[in-house]
């Protein structure tokens, strides 16, 4: 309990840190912060004098720390500025694309957890077998081959040659949108490409965790008293081997977000990754900054949730 409280107490400080870094990036970006903050439709009807007045009113003539506080006040209220490109509020633009990204990244994480976790456990139960080596080396490949290269191979083999899956997009034009079979069909290749490095990560981790669990003394005792292998595994090993895997969810999120930029771009999947990539190409700084901020907040919360879950399922964890 104390651990959880101390962990929670750190969150506001980390959030403030994140906004400071974000603000430094804003200051680095070229462009006029006034035009970035004001609704562009209003902007057209204002004179230069009026803009100067706004500049003074917004405190843009103040030193950077003061400006940071003013910006933070806006950001906390949900005003992350307006997209240069679409003239829409940054927050709305991001929230619009959120479901697509959550679906894609979330599915890849679930797939990776199930597949990687299972393979890792198998690997550990057959430690030093040929299968174990094959899995371990496969995991190296999964971590080393860039996911965009996987994606290209996937498109070439399964979309172009075999025509099992569509090459890109989220829906067949004319088909209804939403969670349809058509959408799932489009999702197979990108989800797989995004999942590959994660599967490798889960494999390594669950293998090590299972070995730790197998080598615990209570397992030796269980085996010594004559319990069948299967029963030992089910009752004494399996659950313990799952605990450390909780942490991978939080740890892998930054990689998944980074990967989604590339994978969504290749497959023209209309999520936040593609939005962010387009924003970088179009030099849409407010939108980029907004996405970075949201991504960091997501990672922070995921780590928090991970640590708390971990503390709850494993009472041995205490704050150091």
């Amino acid at each position, binding site marked *: 309990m104390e651990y959880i409280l101390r962990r929670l107490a750190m969150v506001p400080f980390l959030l403030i840190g994140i906004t400071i870094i974000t603000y430094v990036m804003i200051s680095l970006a070229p462009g006029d912060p006034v035009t970035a903050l004001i609704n562009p439709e209003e902007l057209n009807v204002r004179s230069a004098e009026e803009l100067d007045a706004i500049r003074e009113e917004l405190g843009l003539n103040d030193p950077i720390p003061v400006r940071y506080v003013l910006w933070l006040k806006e950001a906390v209220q949900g005003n992350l500025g307006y997209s240069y490109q679409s003239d829409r509020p940054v927050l709305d633009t991001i929230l619009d694309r959120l479901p697509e990204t959550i679906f894609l990244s979330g599915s890849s994480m679930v797939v990776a957890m199930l597949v990687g976790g299972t393979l890792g456990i198998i690997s550990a139960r057959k430690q030093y077998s040929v299968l174990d080596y094959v899995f371990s080396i496969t995991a190296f490949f999964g971590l080393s081959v860039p996911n965009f290269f996987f994606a290209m191979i996937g498109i070439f083999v399964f979309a172009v040659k075999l025509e099992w899956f569509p090459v890109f997009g989220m829906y067949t034009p004319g088909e209804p949108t939403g969670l349809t079979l058509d959408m799932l069909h489009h999702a197979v290749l990108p989800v797989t490409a995004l999942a590959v490095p994660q599967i490798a990560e889960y494999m390594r*981790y669950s293998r090590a965790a299972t070995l730790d669990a197998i080598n615990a003394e209570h397992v*030796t005792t269980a085996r010594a008293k004559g319990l069948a292998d299967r029963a030992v595994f089910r009752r004494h090993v399996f659950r313990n081997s799952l605990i*450390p895997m909780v942490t991978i969810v939080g740890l892998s999120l930054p990689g998944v977000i980074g990967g989604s930029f590339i994978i969504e771009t290749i497959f023209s999947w209309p999520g936040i990754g593609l939005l962010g990539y387009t924003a970088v190409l179009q030099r849409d700084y407010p939108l980029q900054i907004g996405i970075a901020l949201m*991504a960091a907040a997501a990672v922070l919360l995921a780590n928090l949730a991970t640590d708390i879950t971990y503390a709850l399922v494993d009472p041995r964890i205490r704050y150091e």
Partner: protein
Amino acid sequence: MSDIVSSAASATSPIEPSAAVSGRALSPGRRTLRRFLRHRLALFGATVMGIMVLCAITAPIIAPYDPTAINLVNISQPPGRDHLLGTDAVGRDILSRALYGARISLSVGVVAVAIYLSIGFILGAVAGYTGGLTDSAIMRFTDVMMCFPTFVLILILVGIVGPNITNIMLVIGLFGWPGVARLVRGQVLQLREMDYVLAARAVGGSRPYVMSRHILPNVIGPLTVAGSLGIAGAILAEAGLSFLGLGVTQPTPSWGAMLNEARNPATLATEPWLWLTPGILISLAVLSANFIGDGLRDAFDVRSKAGH
């Protein structure tokens, strides 16, 4: 934070479980096979990496064509006698571009990692050695930086400063250090209490002296491991950036940029030789760096020292 966990994750080799003592009896044959294989992987990595470095250095001599020479008579040729690996959409020789590309991809990897190892070492060593408020400040800063998905930050900053080789090296170098800082700090915290370090301080050794003489040599092992795994990551990052068209720009060849040229579905489908070569090379380079890192980790036995 999850630093306990992340260091455990990175310090655990997939071949060697974190529980070093296996509960099972191991036949001598199997044990030999295991050692053999582990050495084989690192050896394989070192060999492949060595060949790549050699190719990169000698590219001007061994490349059959000028990598940027446009030849409109020979566009999009499949691999054949004149062009062993084919040509691209403007008739440039893929083999030559791949050889020159090794220079870009590998040097970006090495330079970027050198930059962030230095930043990470200095911050981690200062934090661990000084302790107190300085330590807290640096480590909280590290925590904050770790919240950002590195690739996203790199992408945005490259968008701001503009894509070219120098900027790519600097930007990847600027954001890679948090993990290294944590690793070094953990080591320094332990080293700081060692008798010989205390002795060196007691006889009046200055901070820079103790750091360079007694601390640095003891963290070289873990740093080398982090460095070789980092090179793998930096090569991937450069390839990802260039693949998205935000890395090394035309006409300079880099493996990622070569993949970028084959990105549209039509080219991807009809001219696989454009992207297979650079894709395989990136994968091999990253795989080799990872194998080397893993071999070094076993050699230095980082695991037993790395904990907090």
